[in-house]
């Protein structure tokens, strides 16, 4: 194994990627669409449906327009990163695997107080819920840990274990800084680059767009169009493109929310519309995989054993 400098933001990502790669995960790249969480990535949302085993890890940029603070709040961003791990079926030693990842980041569990504190997860738009914990590191939540029970309205069998690291939070802890913008992104031969240098202007401009310029009428139309397209694609038995339309609709909804364009009562209705689409996609995806004979069920189980503690 290579040791990366997890005291930089990019070193932290590389270290996690390396670790989970060694555990047998498929390392994929971020989804190229705007999503609110790593769970939306098809590698998690769709792959947790049906019987096929798969494990994967990836970084996912997340957009939450309402969380924008024009770059003025040291703890909040409208665009941030999650490191997402999904293991299906969830291995018996999944907690240990997670704790070992922290050790590799230099977090000694005999120095720091690490706790699994009950926190159950529910995504109304994805028709999904699960049970698990938030992980506390000396009282700070650094990870969400969930055993999926239902996704897209379908029971999960087997169960996917999802581990979501909040990268900025974790980095702030490791680097001991009080502002996201003070995080060291990299510290190499070409000098030190900070999170501020990469993303501050983006936070200011995108917040301005989200709250002030996003075109409400166009977004409403876009939402409706995505809904229509998604339904048509389901009819055409194309669940993957149909799912992309769901994500686009979901993002349009988030932007409308940031523009305060949706009243409290209407809000519930929009969430339901997205959920209806998600469920249709989930069912279509399942049917399609079934039609294909659930190909990944036939793959040889790997020679590397996820039950081992890594290869140090």
């Amino acid at each position, binding site marked *: 194994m290579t040791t990366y400098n997890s005291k930089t933001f990019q070193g932290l990502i590389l270290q996690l990627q390396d670790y989970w790669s060694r555990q047998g995960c498929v390392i994929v790249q971020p989804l190229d669409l705007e999503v609110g969480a790593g769970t939306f990535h098809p590698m998690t949302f769709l792959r947790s449906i049906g019987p096929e085993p798969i494990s994967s890890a990836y970084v996912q940029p997340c957009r939450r327009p309402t969380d924008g603070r024009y770059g003025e709040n*040291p*703890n909040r961003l409208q665009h941030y990163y999650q490191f997402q791990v999904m293991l299906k*079926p*969830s*291995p*018996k030693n999944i*907690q240990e695997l997670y704790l070992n990842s922290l050790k590799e980041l230099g977090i*000694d*569990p*005999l*120095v*720091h*107080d*690490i*706790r*699994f*504190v*009950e926190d*159950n997860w529910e995504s109304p738009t994805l028709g999904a819920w*699960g*049970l698990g*914990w938030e992980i506390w*590191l*000396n*009282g*700070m939540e650094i990870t969400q840990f969930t*055993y999926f*029970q239902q996704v897209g309205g379908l029971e*999960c*069998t*087997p*169960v996917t*274990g999802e581990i979501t690291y909040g990268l900025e939070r974790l980095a702030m*802890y490791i680097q001991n800084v*009080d502002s996201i913008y003070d995080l060291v992104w990299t510290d190499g031969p070409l000098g030190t680059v900070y999170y501020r240098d990469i993303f501050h202007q983006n936070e200011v401009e995108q917040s301005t767009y989200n709250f002030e310029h996003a075109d409400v009428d166009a977004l409403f139309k876009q939402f409706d169009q995505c809904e229509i397209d998604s339904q048509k694609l389901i009819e055409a038995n194309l669940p993957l493109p149909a799912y992309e339309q769901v994500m686009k609709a979901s993002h349009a909804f988030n932007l409308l929310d940031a523009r305060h364009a949706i009243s*409290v*009562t209407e809000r519930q209705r929009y969430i339901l519309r997205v959920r209806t689409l998600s469920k249709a996609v989930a069912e279509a995806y399942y049917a399609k995989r079934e039609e294909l004979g659930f190909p990944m069920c036939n793959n040889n189980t790997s020679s590397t054993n996820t039950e081992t503690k890594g290869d140090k």
Partner: protein
Amino acid sequence: MTTETLLIELGTEELPPKSLKTLATAFFDNIKTQLDSNDLTYSDIKWFATPRRLAVQVIDLVGKQQDKTVEKRGPAVNVAFDAEGNASKAAQGWARSNGITVEQAERLTTDKGEWLLHRATVTGKAIAELIPDMVTTALSKLPIAKPMRWGAERTQFIRPVHTLTMMFGSEVIAGEALGVTSANQLQGHRFHHEGLVTLNHANEYQAELLKAYVEVDFAERQKKIVAQIEQVAKDINAVALIDEDLLDEVTALVEWPVTLVGTFDEDFLNVPAEPLIYSMKDHQKYFPVNDKNGQLLNKFIFVSNIESKDPSAVIFGNEKVIRPRLADAEFFFKTDKKQSLESRLTSLESVLFQKQLGTLKAKSERIAELSQFIAEQLNENADDAYRAGLLSKTDLMSEMVLEFPQVQGTMGKYYALHDGENVNIAQALEDQYRPRFAGDSLPEANIGCAVAISDKIDTLVGIFGINQAPKGDKDPFALRRAAIGSIRIIIEKQLDLDLSELINKSIELFGDKLVNENTANDVLDFIMGRFRAFYQEQGISVDVIQAVLAKKPSAPLDFEKRIKAVTFFGELPEAATLAAANKRVGNILAKFDGQLTAFNSDLATEQAEKDLANVYQAIKLEVAPLMAVKDYQAALSELAQLKAPIDTFFDNVMVMSDDEAIKINRLTLLNEIRNSFFAIADISVLQ
């Protein structure tokens, strides 16, 4: 018989802390019930629980059930054999099913006849044979709100299960539960102990786990935590605020408690204590501390789960977490103060109280009117009451309350004082939500009572008015709490108010919004139902409450007086007879469908009848002025004197005389007497 210690432990991933105690005691109860119903005796039985285990230990448990003799009765002898003495088919079948021949059967003779009998010996089962099923049953009956699955298994439980240990003395009991096989291997502390703990004897459970950094006894662990907190508080010359629920939760979050203290910037103390305390307790599970004068200090106590190699790192981390939260509170407080509560009334227009009932602004206006109405009846400053009612919901629009809903009302008080509202109004804003739970304190002043009652009555009337009365467990608007809160305030604060009047006024304030024509009755009946719970909790017997409820007294103080009077009456030696007599009269009158007139003494023929009438006339004169001042107890004392004449009357007089006029006259007398009692309560239901 030899006895041994039994241990049953289930090792899991971290269980939900708020339900840990419930789960552990339910598991314990389920095991105990089965041991008892299987006639397995023991000297003691205990439960244990940590975040990662549920366990039961049974001391001096017998190794097997006693053998038992069971008597099985067969067919009667006179049908078991024919005339020749040959056994019938039925008799043979019965014998075969018991594994004997008819000849081997004994006889059971009673005064009713003679039967075939088989005395069977049932061999008692050994513990090892019984326990696995008991464990499976006990686990399946746990109150699990949301069961989960994990991996590729179909098993369901609260959280994934890793170990199962069933041991009797030093023997492992073979078996499995929830997909795990029983072994003498236990999880130790997640970080302080490598690998599993091997247990050699069920007796050593606590001691071995202690060595592995697990204090497995919940109560013991809690005691340690309290002692540590108190010690730490003493060291910093402070008093820790230990909330029972939080203490239970914290106890359920650690296996090896190590208590530490953190500090935050003193400047945060410029923010009112409540939101700071809430930030510390609710999310972070910290214990806030006061100085000796009850002022919040810039310190917090927290319980970690490790003996850290570097406690300062743990403290540093926790201080870092709380800082932005307190900074949020400070920011909200500063921002909120820039806007007066009054100016927030407009924004209440955009918040719905309930779709059919309109906005919070409309609710505030109704609360204001109703508070004024109540204040006038209580001779309080009606303008203050109106103003407090009008502002009552404005703090819901503040940033602070949006972020920390638990400090609603309290922040209203601070912001009102900041706006220059008078102290009575400010205090009423805080008091409007009281009592928030059973046993909570009541509003201090009457203005606060007025707003608190108005808010509750408005919700009750509104929700009943649109036909959304609570059903079963579903009470989304917390109407039960609202009703019992109103009762408590009126009775304990001795307020001279009539619920019917308040309800009618409230209905009037809703204008045309209500669709239920029976709103007034429905709300009153609902509150009457709460009176039952309210008095039962105080130990008043059900029949006394029933007797008063029959009258539906809508003024709570009047209700209270009647309860006291009937309780007093119930203890008089005359009570039983008079209750029976009232019941008897009630039954007679129920069957009578004619017309009663006025009592005519000339028609009284029997002596006992005349005596009763005379005594009653005299008592009636005494009772009238007592009833006028609602001295029900004295009135019942007077009426109690009727016992002797009524007894004599029933012993000597035939009520249903053949002479119609005489009969009606007697019924009239009895009816009048009954009405005198019934003016206070239906004492016929007393037992």
